[in-house]
């Protein structure tokens, strides 16, 4: 593979912000990383270490105090349009059906918003296809409150992907789900990624989740957050839940676990 320009790059990024109590918070210190086009990266670390902050910087929702955030070589200034986001909380709009929730980005993001009316059927078909891919065919017209937590999270993933973003930012999307649903959704996310091959940054505190899904796992220190370790996960795709019991898999988890143990003391 030729070495092309990274899709996302952080160059020596530091971030200070004023917290709710008025005190200055030193969230990130000297973070540098570079993510290739189509790479799946997981960032793991103790809670409050600034993992979410990295996502906000990449999305352009907040500016870095020092250093540079680059997407496709261009510095990020202000909210990005080619990213999709999903959070721990599915944040669906309760007055819209599952399908209408998935369509929301197309009503907002350019250039789709300008043809939303004329191409509505086509867009709906695209949303239906995505819902099918995550196993929600037949639920398109249900309102969110009639869906389980896992189903809502699937809809949220579809919403993050409908406008075919180049970069998908996931902030602990499965943290609030029960263990069985969570592992099921790992499989769903993996097949979505294999189908779309977008660049993914997943923030998580679940190490098995990180190893199962990512090509590269970064470990962050506690605040101020620094990247202290990087592991390439060299496991064949598609990965199966069965593989989680193989020593190759558990060795990765164990190694990362030890690294996190080091930064927590």
């Amino acid at each position: 593979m030729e070495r092309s320009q990274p899709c996302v790059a952080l160059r020596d990024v530091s971030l200070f912000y004023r917290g709710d109590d008025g005190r200055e918070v030193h969230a990130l210190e000297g973070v540098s990383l570079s993510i290739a086009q189509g790479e799946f990266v997981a960032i793991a670390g103790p809670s409050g270490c600034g993992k979410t902050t990295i996502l906000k910087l990449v999305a352009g929702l907040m500016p870095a105090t020092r250093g540079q955030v680059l997407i496709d070589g261009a510095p990020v200034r202000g909210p990005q349009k080619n990213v999709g986001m999903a959070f721990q909380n599915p944040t669906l709009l309760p007055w819209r059906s599952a399908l209408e929730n998935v369509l929301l980005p197309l009503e907002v993001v350019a250039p789709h918003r300008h043809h939303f009316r004329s191409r509505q059927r086509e867009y709906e078909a695209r949303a239906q296809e995505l819902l099918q891919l995550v196993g929600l065919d037949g639920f398109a017209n249900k309102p969110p409150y009639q869906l389980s937590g896992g189903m809502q999270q699937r809809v949220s993933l579809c919403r993050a992907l409908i406008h075919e973003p180049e970069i998908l930012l996931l902030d602990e999307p499965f943290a609030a789900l029960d263990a069985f649903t969570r592992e099921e959704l790992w499989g769903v996310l993996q097949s979505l990624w294999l189908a779309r091959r977008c660049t993914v940054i997943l923030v998580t505190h679940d190490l098995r989740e990180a190893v199962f899904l990512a090509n590269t796992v970064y470990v962050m220190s506690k605040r101020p957050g620094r990247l202290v370790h990087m592991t390439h996960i060299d496991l064949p795709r598609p990965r199966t839940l069965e593989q989680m019991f193989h020593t190759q898999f558990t060795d990765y988890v164990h190694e990362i676990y030890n690294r996190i143990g080091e930064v927590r003391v």
Partner: protein
Amino acid sequence: MKPNTLLRRAFPPAAAIALFFLAWELGCLAFNVDEFILPRPSVAIAAYFQWQEAIWPNALQTLFTTLVGLGLAIAAGTLIGALIGYSALLYDALYPLLVAFNSIPKAALVPVFVIWFGVGTLPAVLIAFLISFFPIAVNVATGIATVEPELRDVLRSLGASKLDLFAKVGFPRALPYFFASLKVAVTLAFVGSVVAELGASNRGIGNMMVIASSRFDVPLVFAGLIVVALMGIALYAAFAILERRVVAWAYR
């Protein structure tokens, strides 16, 4: 709705109203209350039928001033509510002023408005507007200010403008709050216009009640009160039905 369920839903309030009138009627009879102090409902209703040709134009006048005042309150309340809901700065800046205005007894403003605008429809419209504006503004502001930050991030990361955010999230999310406030505001608006008509109008139910009481025609005063109450219920019900249709998602 099936006729059967409609009947079942309508029965309890109808029965409660009937019981209320019955207790009033029997209480007046039992304690031999003078008609001049508190007329029995049957007498008040008889007065209504005796005077209905005079009552209706006045009732419509009151309904008109109430609706115009309420309409202004909806427009201004939604606008101010959206502004202070979106901007923490405007919220901090304007809230004390809004509370101060709302604390002023609206009846005390009637003579002021008479000096400014003379006797007529305008003071009644303005009082109805002022009294019903506050709950609408506060509720719309609450609905908009409590939009989940993640949802805001989702839309902002799509390049949504403030207007998009309002149209796609803020406004629909504020609608249940808006309708809740509307049900309070509509009854308050009636209070406002009738209070203003008592002293500052030559038309309307309030004015009719002043004339009736100056002739010691207490049954007609009570007939007027009942008409105002009925119009209040009718408008409240209209908004409640509209609410069920528009924000059905909030009731599950």
